[in-house]
């Protein structure tokens, strides 16, 4: 029975990791917690749902379209709401409150456009289930885990090995110096937002395909849990987000099993508060000394 919980927890965790990566990407480059990331995840899921239901494109193309649309949406958000603040050198709080505002706009726009009822979403990777030992494994779960791992590797490859990835890491270290070296910082930031939006869209589609249900409010709680994961792993660090996601996923599925259904959300918040108090820089983050 324990193995079943571990496996279910891992499936949940890998998707939280996929969302958490979005937080870490944006935080790494901008030192900003993108509060609208949860709503972006729901936005991506709804785009995929609309494409699948209203056109005869398969689920695969629906996700591709959703990735592009969501990526563009986040870039648009950065361009309209956040870039002017950076230009104006306004206080950090303003950017955070702006993302809170954006998350409310996106979530409520989804509710008005798609109605607030839960809607059906086709099952993803539906090739039946099989038994390993006494652990029941669904093909959907295997599919989700493989896609997530591939995507995470792709993201790490982009950040570590490509030219734009180098630019992102440079901006992460010191935006001013990077701009002096000829890096168009705003272009790098909007590309990072695109990556964040794209990974959220995939995560949204995978989760909806797994549970076969889509709802405008799905982003709020999932976004918060993914943020706990990102902080646990050390916000700004990709592999930290992945590790954090798996831990939060496992903790949640064990809590739901052993303590009770009502406590599954509480576990993620308790992890968040505990990590924030004892290790605000997370497991892999390093201490930052404030220079006088």
């Amino acid at each position, binding site marked *: 029975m324990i193995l079943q919980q571990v496996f279910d927890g891992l499936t949940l965790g890998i998707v939280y990791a996929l969302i958490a990566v979005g937080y870490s990407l944006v935080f790494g480059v901008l030192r900003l917690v993108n509060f609208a990331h949860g709503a972006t995840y729901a936005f991506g899921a709804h785009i995929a749902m609309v494409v699948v239901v209203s056109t005869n494109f398969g689920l695969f193309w629906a996700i591709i379209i959703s990735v592009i649309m969501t990526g563009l949406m986040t870039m648009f958000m950065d361009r309209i709401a956040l870039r002017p603040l950076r230009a104006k050198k306004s206080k950090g709080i303003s950017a*955070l409150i702006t993302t809170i505002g954006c998350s409310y706009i996106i979530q409520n726009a989804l509710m008005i456009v798609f109605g607030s009822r839960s809607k059906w979403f086709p099952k993803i990777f539906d090739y039946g289930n099989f038994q390993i030992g006494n652990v029941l494994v669904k093909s959907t779960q295997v599919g989700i885990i493989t896609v997530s791992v591939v995507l995470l590797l792709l993201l790490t490859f982009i950040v570590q090995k490509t030219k734009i990835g180098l630019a992102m890491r440079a901006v992460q270290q010191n935006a001013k110096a990077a701009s002096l070296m000829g890096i168009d910082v705003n272009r790098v930031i909007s590309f990072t937002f695109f990556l964040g939006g794209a990974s959220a869209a995939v995560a949204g589609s995978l989760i909806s395909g797994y549970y076969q249900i889509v709802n405008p409010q799905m982003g709020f709680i999932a976004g918060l849990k993914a943020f706990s994961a990102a902080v646990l792993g050390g916000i700004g660090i990709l592999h930290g987000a992945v590790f954090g996601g798996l831990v939060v996923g496992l903790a949640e599925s064990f809590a739901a099993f052993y303590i009770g259904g009502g406590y599954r959300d509480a576990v993620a918040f308790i992890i968040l508060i505990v990590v924030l108090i004892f290790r605000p820089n997370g497991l892999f983050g390093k201490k930052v000394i404030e220079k006088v």
Partner: protein
Amino acid sequence: MKHNNAKKNLLDTKPKKIAALVVMVALVLYLPKSGLLSPYLVRILTMISLYSMLSLSLNLLTGFTGLVSIGHAGFCAVGGYTSALMWQYLGLPWLVTAICGMIMAGVVGLMLAAPTSRLSGSYLTIATLGFGEIVKMIALNWQSFTGGPLGVNHIERPEFFGITLTTFNGGFFYLSIILTALVTLFVYRIVNSKMGRAFMAIRDDSLAATMMGVDVTAYKMKSFVISAAIAGLGGAFYVHFVRFLDPNTFNFDISIIIISIVILGGTGSIPGSFLGAALLISFPEILRFASEYRFIIYGLILVLMMRFKPEGILGGHSHRPFRLMKGVESYGN
């Protein structure tokens, strides 16, 4: 700035100010009784005054001390539940349960502030969000005590000198005005004292504040406790007003409404909170069609205000002279 000589403006002369105050008070007290307003409008004014109180408490924390909290409804919930459950289990009168609600919320504010006041900016904000959700989770799962999803209903209305307050006899309206007036005076006196200056110093440059001898962590906690206590009082008032309370009464939407009021009205401005509350509580009533879009509009307010006027309508550097104590020689400035 052109402000080197104190401009004498209309309201500054003493007798005029008292006269304006008396007229205002008479108008406010006469209003509900005059039949001019239907119970529905009296209810709106009561809600405006309640939200002014709540946004004043958040303004103290976010506007004056610079600690952005988006879990403020959690403190209202603590105050509300304490008051409702003390009535349910002990049958105590409203005044007693409300004060206990206030104290309980203050204590919870301390419990949240102690570990998190070392955190910086966005970490603290997200921690307060987590706090708001945890309060809701406890209310939902501790079914034997809080009634869980069933919540608490038929909550008794406050009773003073034998009269039970209802919206029809304007009782709740007067109570909310009195509470808001007390809270406003309380916040005004804090802000214009050594403690208020310490809060603002922490907001502007906490390191310089430390170097000037301000115990930053202690003052952050004080700001949290006072702000939470007022929010708890607001929560205690609201549950006896609506006579019903469940885990969803004080959800995340309420926190967003409160912070939108503070941001729109003006961070660090007491009249700003009143203006923000008046605008944001009445606009869904006036523009009925807009009420479905109201949360998009709150979101838009946050984004547009941050973009164009981060200090809010009435916030920012005021042109009025700094009010020195009587008898302080200011050499003609």
